[in-house]
């Protein structure tokens, strides 16, 4: 997984302190929250309102795949619907490409959704009366694009997801995995910059799911799209996401790269979550290495790796060469050493015993 250089890229979705409160008295509840700082439980008790999303702030940058991970009821599906205003926020602002979407009128909002934000659903929602091609062309059809043009675009999108031979079929003739590919092709046909993925692979069996995860990541990167990806599966979030936000009870409790979350969980809840995650491909050499000075033996004879090499690669080096340690080098300069002991604690998820100075 190449690390996407997204730190400096343009912010496409800027979600600022967004709240969503459901219930008949949500207006009063919101006032009570802002004025008196009421908690979720108190809001439920006093106003019989449910806080779906609570003070969520996140930024999605161009070219980035941003995962929102949470269990059912954590508010992740509500949050993703706030991003294209399928749900109106109770409080806070969502900027898409710098524009506050709350200020858009109906026509401008339709334009925004049609051209800039595609969406893929867990239920797929393919229109059963239409062929695969007609489904994939749906977005352009409602934009009034001519039949020839939209069918060409739909065919191209279906080719990208490997369904060129199925264009004339009906959705009911396709397997679940193929249907979800059509859903993805439908979102791609309109060529939006942002794709919202609402647990798209959750209903698929594990093998197909992994395959689609890899394909989705590859395709999104190749096409330079940005995506917000909702999932309840941390493994999936780690496989797909450049950055991950973890949600619980409507609150984003941690945002970071997979490595940051696994190495430095924000609280016990996240720690419990990441406990079972394999570190092999997550943790990089620079997180577990010790300063070269602490290494007793000779540095010259050691196999060399880059600071971005993951634990799996380091273990490979050590087992192949029979050496006891790997020198971590940036160019010609050795910046640190990873010993077998460091690798073992890395696999367990502990950071380097003495924090590497020049990481």
């Amino acid at each position, binding site marked *: 997984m190449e690390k996407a250089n997204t730190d400096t890229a343009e912010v496409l979705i800027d979600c600022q302190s967004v709240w969503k409160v459901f219930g008949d008295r949500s207006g009063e509840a919101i006032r009570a929250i802002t004025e008196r700082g009421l908690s979720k439980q108190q809001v439920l008790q006093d106003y019989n309102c449910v806080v779906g999303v609570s003070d969520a702030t996140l930024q999605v940058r161009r070219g980035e795949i941003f995962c929102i991970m949470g269990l059912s009821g954590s508010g992740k599906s509500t949050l993703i619907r706030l991003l294209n205003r399928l749900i109106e926020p109770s409080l806070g602002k969502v900027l898409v490409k710098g524009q506050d979407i709350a200020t858009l009128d109906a026509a401008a909002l339709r334009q925004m959704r049609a051209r800039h934000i595609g969406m893929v659903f867990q239920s797929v929602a393919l229109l059963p009366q239409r062929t695969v091609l007609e489904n994939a062309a749906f*977005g352009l059809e409602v934009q009034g694009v001519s039949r020839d043009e939209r069918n060409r675009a739909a065919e191209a999108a279906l080719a990208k997801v490997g369904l060129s031979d199925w264009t004339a079929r009906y959705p009911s003739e396709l397997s679940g995995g193929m249907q979800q590919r059509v859903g993805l092709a439908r979102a791609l046909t309109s060529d939006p910059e942002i794709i919202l993925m609402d647990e798209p692979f959750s209903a698929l069996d594990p093998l197909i799911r992994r395959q689609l995860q890899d394909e989705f990541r590859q395709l999104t990167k190749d096409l330079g799209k940005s995506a917000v990806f909702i999932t309840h599966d941390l493994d999936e979030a780690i496989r797909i996401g450049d950055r991950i936000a973890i949600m619980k009870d409507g609150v984003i409790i941690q945002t970071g790269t997979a490595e940051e979350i696994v190495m430095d969980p924000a609280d016990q809840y996240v720690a419990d979550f990441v406990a079972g995650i394999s570190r092999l491909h997550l943790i990089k050499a620079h997180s577990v290495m010790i300063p070269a000075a602490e290494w007793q033996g000779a540095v010259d004879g050691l196999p060399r790796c880059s600071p971005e090499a993951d634990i799996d690669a380091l273990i490979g080096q050590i087992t192949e060469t029979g050496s006891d340690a790997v020198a971590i080098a940036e160019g010609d300069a050795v910046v640190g050493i990873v010993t077998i002991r460091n690798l073992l604690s890395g696999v367990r998820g502990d950071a380097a015993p003495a924090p590497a100075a020049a990481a």
Partner: protein
Amino acid sequence: MEMSALIARFDAMVDNALFWLSDHAAFLFDFFRIVLEGLYDGALWLLEQPPFYVVALLAGLLGWRIVGRGFGLGIAAALLACAAMGLWPETMETLALVIAASIIALAISLPLGVLAGLMPRLDRALTPVLDLIQTLPPYIYLLPAIALLGYGPATALVATVIVAMPPAIRLTALGIRQTPREFIELGQATGVTPAQMFWKIRLPFAVPSIMAGINQSLMMAFGMVVIAGIVGSGGLGETIYGAIRTLDIATSIDASIAIVILTMMLDRLTQGAARPRNGART
């Protein structure tokens, strides 16, 4: 005493209102009658132009095309049997009545049902009215109609239209209302206009329910057209009514058989037409 006086006053008011209508709005009801009878005469004229065996042949071909070969052959044979019983003109009159009444009923109830499906308040307002129409004994509608439109097919048509409308309205509204949530969301997320939401998403999902409503309306229309024999509707209903008065059991049974044949034919044909085309399974 008090109570019965009140009731008597109410009855007098209803009577007076009806008289007032027939006195002052006669031109309006004459116009209605001309339109209704025109539609009926047109349908009947079409059905009576070809000889009976051509109509039977065409119906058989239609049945073959829409339902299947066995049904097509059966329907052709059954229509020939109607002719053999000497009831061909009456059978065609009844068919023309049902067709004319259904066209009017659907022209009103399909748009109304769509509106009710889109507007919950209209739906709530319509529901008690439809309940009332469906609970009252159907021949009730013959009385005001005969007062305003006179003896004949126009009265039969009005009563039939009233009875035939509720199922189509209800099932159309239901079909429009129960578009699956995820498809509404798909439409919104795709950026469809309200009109596109209706034509491209809500309506296709409502088609099976609407077709069931049309089928039910046709069946209701058949029931009413026979009852309307009392007011001189013509057709098989009047044949049965006459046979009952003279205790002519054989003729009443013949006419009943002809009605069953017509009913089955239209029922199966509309159900067959409602089935989705090959491949487009839901």
